[in-house]
């Protein structure tokens, strides 16, 4: 019965999709509106208009920076959501306490030993990974890369390090205010850049146009990239620690 319902729903959705998709402009057609309308202007204008040779970064941080702001808020919302859902319930008055708290299990759990090979490789490569991630963050407007990519790499590295160091209690105790501040780095960066934009050019999230504000524009873009990267890494680590049960 469920299968039948699923098949009907899938067909009801899939057949109109096929019919609709057939009449779209041919894939790769150079004359399609996708290439002749807004995108043509973006490609023609860069890098003078945006200061970014990587036009995708130009779109993300300049033309459609507001979208990127929304996206950064969504990652933060994910962290808030996960912590809201998984934090222990024990202290609430009147809540049934019949289920064991997962975090207590986690604390008493014996972490499996980390192989010395893994520890060695991780210690060896960590500095290179960090260097590469930072380079990707800061050069994202010239080559493929950017804040998200660099942040994801650092976040993944931090997760690996937390697994490796946790067993020997070498994982550093970071004050909570600093953690929360780092997690809010991306929205904060956007807020700052938005205000500066208003001050300099009279529009929110506007980066000053070349050639007068060239250096300042690059600085503002780097601020955004760094904020996105640091914030993203902190949030990814926070998500992992929350779901693992810390």
């Amino acid at each position, binding site marked *: 019965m469920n299968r039948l319902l*699923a098949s009907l729903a899938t067909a009801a959705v899939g057949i109109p999709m096929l019919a609709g998709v057939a009449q779209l402009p041919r894939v790769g057609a150079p004359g399609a509106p996708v290439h002749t309308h807004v*995108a043509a202007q973006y490609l023609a204008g860069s890098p003078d208009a945006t200061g970014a040779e990587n036009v995708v970064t130009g779109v993300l941080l300049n033309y459609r920076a507001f979208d990127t702001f929304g996206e950064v808020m969504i990652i933060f919302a994910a962290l808030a*959501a996960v912590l809201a859902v998984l934090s222990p319930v024990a202290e609430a008055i009147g809540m049934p306490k019949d289920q064991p708290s997962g975090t207590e299990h986690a604390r008493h759990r014996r972490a499996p030993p980390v192989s010395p090979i893994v520890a060695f490789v991780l210690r060896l490569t960590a500095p290179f990974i960090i260097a590469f991630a930072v380079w990707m963050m800061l050069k994202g407007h010239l080559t493929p890369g950017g804040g998200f990519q660099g942040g994801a790499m650092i976040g993944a590295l931090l997760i690996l390090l937390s697994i490796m160091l946790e067993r020997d209690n070498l994982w550093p105790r970071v004050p909570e205010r600093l953690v929360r501040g780092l997690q809010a780095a991306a929205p904060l960066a956007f807020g700052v850049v938005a205000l500066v934009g208003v001050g300099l050019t009279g529009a929110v999230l506007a980066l000053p146009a070349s050639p007068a504000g060239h250096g300042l524009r690059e600085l503002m873009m780097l601020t955004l990239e760094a904020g996105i990267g640091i914030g993203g890494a902190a949030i990814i680590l926070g998500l992992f620690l929350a779901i693992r049960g810390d």
Partner: protein
Amino acid sequence: MDALWWNLDYVAAVILFCIGLYTVVARNNLIKKLLGLNIMETAVFAFIVTTGSVDGGAAPLVGADALPPFASPVPHAMVLTGIVVAVSVTALALSLIVAVYRDHRTLEADELREID
């Protein structure tokens, strides 16, 4: 029919979307439903990026020695943003699954329906 052949990439994305949708509705296990959702999301991202492709096009990096034609940068930006959104939703979904498992010790939808 010809039109479907020219837009085969789109057709593939649609088929993938349908596989994902079927999985979300038909599968019993909550994690499998979540995977179906991820398949749907991937299908949509593939579709959107493909709309930006151009015959013989290069990545939209307009450095000094780059030659047109370039792929459209907007779909790339859309998908980058979309991936982050999808990851956020998946993270929340997984934590909800953890919470459900802690409460009910099962992840099968039919068993969970009995409990309600």
